[in-house]
């Protein structure tokens, strides 16, 4: 197996773990963490592709990851404050119990 495939496999595994977490957890905070994990696996892909690309001096992969980390930080901040606001209303962070819009 070449080194790039190893990194891509690891990244695929992280993505699946994040997806599994986001689908099965009920705590809203942990669902958010699962989504963060999926973002991070994409970052690992970018870095691995950048490292083994024919023209790494363009730094595109690194730049992409830097901006992606920035966006992930903003997403975590807003997401967690939304969870806190929702908690104040429903008194729970269990996603199965927050069901006013279910009809």
């Amino acid at each position, binding site marked *: 197996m070449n080194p790039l495939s190893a990194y891509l496999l690891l990244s695929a595994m992280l993505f699946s773990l994040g997806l599994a977490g986001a689908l*099965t957890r009920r705590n809203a905070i942990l669902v958010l963490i699962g989504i963060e994990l999926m973002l991070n696996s994409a*970052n690992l892909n970018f*870095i691995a592709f950048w490292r083994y690309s024919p023209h790494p001096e363009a730094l595109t992969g690194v730049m992409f990851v*830097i901006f992606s980390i920035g966006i992930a930080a903003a997403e975590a901040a807003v997401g*967690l404050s939304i*969870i*806190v606001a929702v908690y104040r209303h429903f008194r729970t962070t269990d996603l199965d119990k927050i069901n006013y819009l279910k009809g």
Partner: protein
Amino acid sequence: MTISFLLLAAITITGTAAAMSLKNAVHCILALTLGMVGLAALYLQLGAEFVGLTQILVYVGAVAILAVFAIMMTRSRTSETAAGSDPSRFSGLVTALLLFTVLAVAICTGISSQTLGGTPPEATVHAVGVALMQRFILPLEIIGVLLTAALIGAGMLAIEEKGEGR
């Protein structure tokens, strides 16, 4: 496939798998930070020094602390009731497993090793800084605006409104 890669991959997978499967929410966050440190070490191993250290700074220093604060503020029941026979839980796991199988097959069959660049690239902090200030100046400005908006928005959302609560 060096030993260091296998070790770091094992740490990362252990941390993230624990983060997604432990019952106690705080334990999940602590396991997640382990996974993130492993990921940052992988970035360092790949030669992206700046990204690796930023990863530690953002995920261990900020996101994990933020998540822990959110857990403390929401007083969510720290241990979920584990329902093994839950159908939605089962289908979620199956979906993730299927996705992994598809991705793994695609990766193992799709990449030929001829096109790979061999020499490790030089991503010095200087080069990253120059690129950020010249080619990528517009995205940098936009991310600055985005982060400011997120800061104000998060503050506005989480602030306690008058008459609410208590």
